């Protein structure tokens, strides 16, 4: 398979963020380490430090939403585990879905350091009080969707997440470094899986193209509303939680995908996609933001199904939690006796 442009660079940026984190920790802060001084010095805020209420609340919202997305994100792909075309693909898909569970747990743990309990977070997801990424409310109709999700959805997620490795909140930055390193396997396996289909029979090629046609615009929408309409951005940038605007990251993603699509031999479903010499970027058609808002509000093709499935899984697992708690209590009594 040809080399994937961009993947090495993104992994390199994760390594750099990790090095910057270590380097910032070595730098001594002059005088009192107030919240503003720590932010200004590009150092990390840690769990028990004083911080503005809005910083804490905003981070809880963002990290929780991110964690919920990982947990719900297991469903569209879980849909194809039992129907993977080979044992090898099945093992890869299982590992990927297991990683997503892991990413959700790293992120819940990071959110909990801000003083919210796991039970509160679980309830917020199960009741729909907190949202998850709207991308997971789209159906996975064919096997090629596994490739398209890996390439486009995980690709967009990585572009979004790499700058979060430099987030000012220590536990979130550390969790993101770990997540990004693991996520790059997700993107590559997706690209490779799609590449195999794109080199296959006419039917396989058509299946790959159909998957790309359906996932392209929802992937562009993952970067959120246009900068002008983004509600949380300015403060988030000032506090160094967010490092780039939605539109900057979206552009970066488009610029990465165009050459990757050419190598794949698929067409991105945008007749206006052209290189703009003046800007040094590709011009592209924006995703339908009205559709994004509808899906965010719970009216996506699979919104009800995803949440119902999560609730059912939680209820079906109750007996396991109860049995484990009963066993732990019994062992405790033995120790006491």
């Amino acid at each position, binding site marked *: 398979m040809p080399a994937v442009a961009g993947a090495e660079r993104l992994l390199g940026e994760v390594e750099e963020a990790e090095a910057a984190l270590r380097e910032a920790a070595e730098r001594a802060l002059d005088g009192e380490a107030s919240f503003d001084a720590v932010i200004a010095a590009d150092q990390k805020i840690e769990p*028990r430090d004083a911080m503005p209420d809005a910083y804490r609340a905003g981070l809880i919202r963002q990290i929780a939403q991110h964690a919920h997305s990982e947990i719900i994100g297991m469903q569209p792909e879980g849909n194809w585990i039992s129907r993977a075309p080979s044992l090898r693909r099945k093992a890869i898909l299982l590992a990927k879905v297991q990683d997503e569970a892991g990413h959700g747990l790293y992120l819940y743990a990071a959110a909990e350091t801000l003083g919210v309990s*796991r*039970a509160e977070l679980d309830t917020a997801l199960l009741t729909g009080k907190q949202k998850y990424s709207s991308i997971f409310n789209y159906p996975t109709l064919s096997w090629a969707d596994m490739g398209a999700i890996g390439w486009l959805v995980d690709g967009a997620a990585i572009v979004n997440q790499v700058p979060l490795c430099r987030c000012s909140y220590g536990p979130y930055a550390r969790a993101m470094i770990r997540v990004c390193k693991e996520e790059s396997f997700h993107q590559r396996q997706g690209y490779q899986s799609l590449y195999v289909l794109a080199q296959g029979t006419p039917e396989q090629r058509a299946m790959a193209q159909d998957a790309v046609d359906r996932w392209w615009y929802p992937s562009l929408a993952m970067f959120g509303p246009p900068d002008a309409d983004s509600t949380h951005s300015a403060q988030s940038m000032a506090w160094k939680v967010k490092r780039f605007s939605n539109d900057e990251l979206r552009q970066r993603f488009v610029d990465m995908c165009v050459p990757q699509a050419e190598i794949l031999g698929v067409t991105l479903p945008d007749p206006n996609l052209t290189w703009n010499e003046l800007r040094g970027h590709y011009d592209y058609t924006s995703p339908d933001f009205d559709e994004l808002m509808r899906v965010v509000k719970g009216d996506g093709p699979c919104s009800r199904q995803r949440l119902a499935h999560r609730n059912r899984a939680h209820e079906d697992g109750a007996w396991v939690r109860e049995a484990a708690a009963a*066993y*732990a209590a019994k062992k405790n009594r033995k120790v006491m006796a």
Partner: protein
Amino acid sequence: MTSDVPLWEVFVRPRRGLAHTHAGSLHAPDADMALRHARDLYTRRQEGVSIWVVPAAEITASSPDEKDSFFDPAADKIYRHPTFYELPEGVAHL
């Protein structure tokens, strides 16, 4: 609900010769389950050869509010560092 499930801190020794370092935390009803969860959560890619799990409730931590008064006594004892001592020229192996 998961409110009563205790929190555990996980420490992983990456390789022989290195110390256990904090990898993260997780919820588990008892130590055995915590160890198994820690393996699945923090060593899926051979990141460790040994794991410790510690009940988070058992950790006593210094308070960030008292950071200055707590650690300051060490600040004015620069004579604890070898660089404090000027040596005559020509002295080797010291």
